[in-house]
């Protein structure tokens, strides 16, 4: 078998194996010197990105992919002698999984390149980069897995790696405090998910998502399912930072080192993926999707409004952006929530699917522009040494590129055309108002407040007299920022590239749980 076929056939496993191997070996390679370690990490991240692109290609060309660990052949989901039960761990990759995996890999690569420059003066860099790779492993695993206990394991990798990354700059104990809060909150959440998994296991004797969904559909939605569903959905809503369980978000994002906040945004989006996957695929057939949809919509509205108003109060640049991350998560919950609320009715084809596409498009846009904004914030802190906006001013005199990148990110998040934030916000506004005009009004007001708040940041950090005599940040950091800025403009001017290849397959995959179940169980549903 030639190597290309080997990669093509085993792409789902390689998406986990490459960064995992990279993480395990990174501390060893560091013995050969810092440069070798950095080259290794960037190479591993680039190869992961390649695998993620390959997954997107495979899903778009051949439909849903399954990969069974330890089975021969690797597509044998149900052993012939088992009576129709999947017994092994199955990776199931549909449009939404490939979409999330691509975002994780991309931001992982960008943050890796950025951190080469921004963490130059820190000790224990090999631990930092190993944790970065492990965080990518966690996100990829959450996105690709089709097994509910495996999901829990990757959720734990994700939260522990993220918490350890948050604590990396100890920052007189403040970063460790943030990491402690993050770790406690995500551990209790993960335990609740494990409890729900135990309930589902006790009820259906299955751990495969498709199998659970099928048996739940056949036996009817019981009160135990309801309890398990609530535990899972509330926990994942907390992990993606929905108000009123968002308190860890500003702590964690605000104290994370340099550009690492950018990848923490994607780590939360992996939980958002989990929320969508669970509510559409696992519980979508049996539960009342309308009330699940309204659960998401209300959380989304609360997140949007409280997030953006709390951001006004902040004078720490990264905490301010973290509150904006909460607020932007609200848009995704709103868009997909409207899709879920109308699932199965005539309204779904009328506007629900567009709302879902808007919400999912907003995920990648948010990852790009909030990633860029966090990277510029990291650049400011790298040069100025403080994150307090009250002490900043006049940085545009000396950090011209950073200022331009910040402006691009700020315009994109505020939904100024022709940047990418506008495209997805437009799709959300124009579809959700058909369900209820109030939703679109709140979304538009929040967008204006976002612009006001970022004007405040731009004014106080970049405009005004020259106060700090600083240089521009190192080239690797500028390069990382320029990658994201390029994609922001590309997706702003040609939004159909993203919609056609990434967003529409993801939305259709979510809206079709029966296709998922049929693919895994072989026509049993």
């Amino acid at each position: 078998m030639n190597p290309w076929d080997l990669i093509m056939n085993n792409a789902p496993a390689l998406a986990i194996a490459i960064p995992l191997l990279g993480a395990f070996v990174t501390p060893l390679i560091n013995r050969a010197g810092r440069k070798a370690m950095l080259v290794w990490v960037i190479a591993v991240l680039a190869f992961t990105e390649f695998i993620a692109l390959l997954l997107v290609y495979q899903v778009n060309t051949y439909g849903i992919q399954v990969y069974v660990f330890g089975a021969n052949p690797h597509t044998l989901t149900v052993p012939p002698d088992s009576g129709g039960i999947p017994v092994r761990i199955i990776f199931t990759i549909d449009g939404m999984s490939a979409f999330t995996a691509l975002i994780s890999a991309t931001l992982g690569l960008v943050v890796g390149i950025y951190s080469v420059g921004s963490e130059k003066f820190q000790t224990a860099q090999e631990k930092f980069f190993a944790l970065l790779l492990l965080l990518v492993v966690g996100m990829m695993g959450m996105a690709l897995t089709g097994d509910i206990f495996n999901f829990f394991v990757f959720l734990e990798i994700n939260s522990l790696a993220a918490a350890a990354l948050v604590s990396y700059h100890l920052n007189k104990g403040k970063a460790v405090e943030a990491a402690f809060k993050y770790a406690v909150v995500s551990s209790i959440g993960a335990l609740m998910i494990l409890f729900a998994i135990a309930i589902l296991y006790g009820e259906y004797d299955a751990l495969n998502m498709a199998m659970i969904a099928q048996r739940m559909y056949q036996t009817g939605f019981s009160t135990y399912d309801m309890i398990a569903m609530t535990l899972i959905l509330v926990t994942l809503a907390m992990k993606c930072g929905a108000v009123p369980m968002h308190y860890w978000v500003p702590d964690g994002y605000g104290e994370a080192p340099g550009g690492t906040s950018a990848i923490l945004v994607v780590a939360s989006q992996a939980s958002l993926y989990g929320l969508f996957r669970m509510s559409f695929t696992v519980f979508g057939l049996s539960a009342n999707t309308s009330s699940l949809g309204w659960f998401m919509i209300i959380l989304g509205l609360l997140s949007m409004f409280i997030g953006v108003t709390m951001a006004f109060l902040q004078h720490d640049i990264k905490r301010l952006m973290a509150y904006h991350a909460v607020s932007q998560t609200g848009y995704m919950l709103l868009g997909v929530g409207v899709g879920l609320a109308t699932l199965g009715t005539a309204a779904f084809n009328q506007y629900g699917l567009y709302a879902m596409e808007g919400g999912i498009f907003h995920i990648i846009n948010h990852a790009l522009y909030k990633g860029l904004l966090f990277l510029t914030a990291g650049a400011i802190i790298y040069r100025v040494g403080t994150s307090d906006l009250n002490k900043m001013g006049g940085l545009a005199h000396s950090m011209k590129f950073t200022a331009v990148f910040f402006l691009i990110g700020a315009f994109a998040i505020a939904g100024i055309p022709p940047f990418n934030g506008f495209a997805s916000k437009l799709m959300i506004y124009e579809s959700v108002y058909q369900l209820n005009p109030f939703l679109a009004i709140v979304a538009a007001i929040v967008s204006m407040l976002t612009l006001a708040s970022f004007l405040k940041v731009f004014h106080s950090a970049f405009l005004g007299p020259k106060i700090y005599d600083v240089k521009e940040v190192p080239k690797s950091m500028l390069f990382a920022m320029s990658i994201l800025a390029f994609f922001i403009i590309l997706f702003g001017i040609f939004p159909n590239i993203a919609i056609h290849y990434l967003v529409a397959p993801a939305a259709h995959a979510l809206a079709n749980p029966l296709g998922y179940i049929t693919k895994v169980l072989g026509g049993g549903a």
Partner: protein
Amino acid sequence: MNPLVPTITTPSGVWNPLVWLMVFLLSLIIALIIYMRGEKTRKKGMQAGVFFSGDRPPEGMDAHIAAHNIGWGFMEALRPYYRAMRKMHTGIINDYVGWFLGILAVMLIIFLFWGGA
């Protein structure tokens, strides 16, 4: 659907960023033309002291409006709201867990009545 066509068609409208960009560039050019027609003999630096009635203009941080002054009116108008919000964001880890359990309890009750199909 050709992915290189920039038009998005939403259920109630159409959006094309290229048209928007062209209109933007056109207005930029018009503004530039108006700007070019202005007085060319003005000198830089002559107008600075006017606003300060002859006083020496402030320098450094004093000349800059710091972040906490921006949006003051907005926060003042919404003061009761912000007081409630500050009370909510205590920063105590017990409260973080408490809010999580609270939402869990509320959602359990809501889904008990409206969760099933």
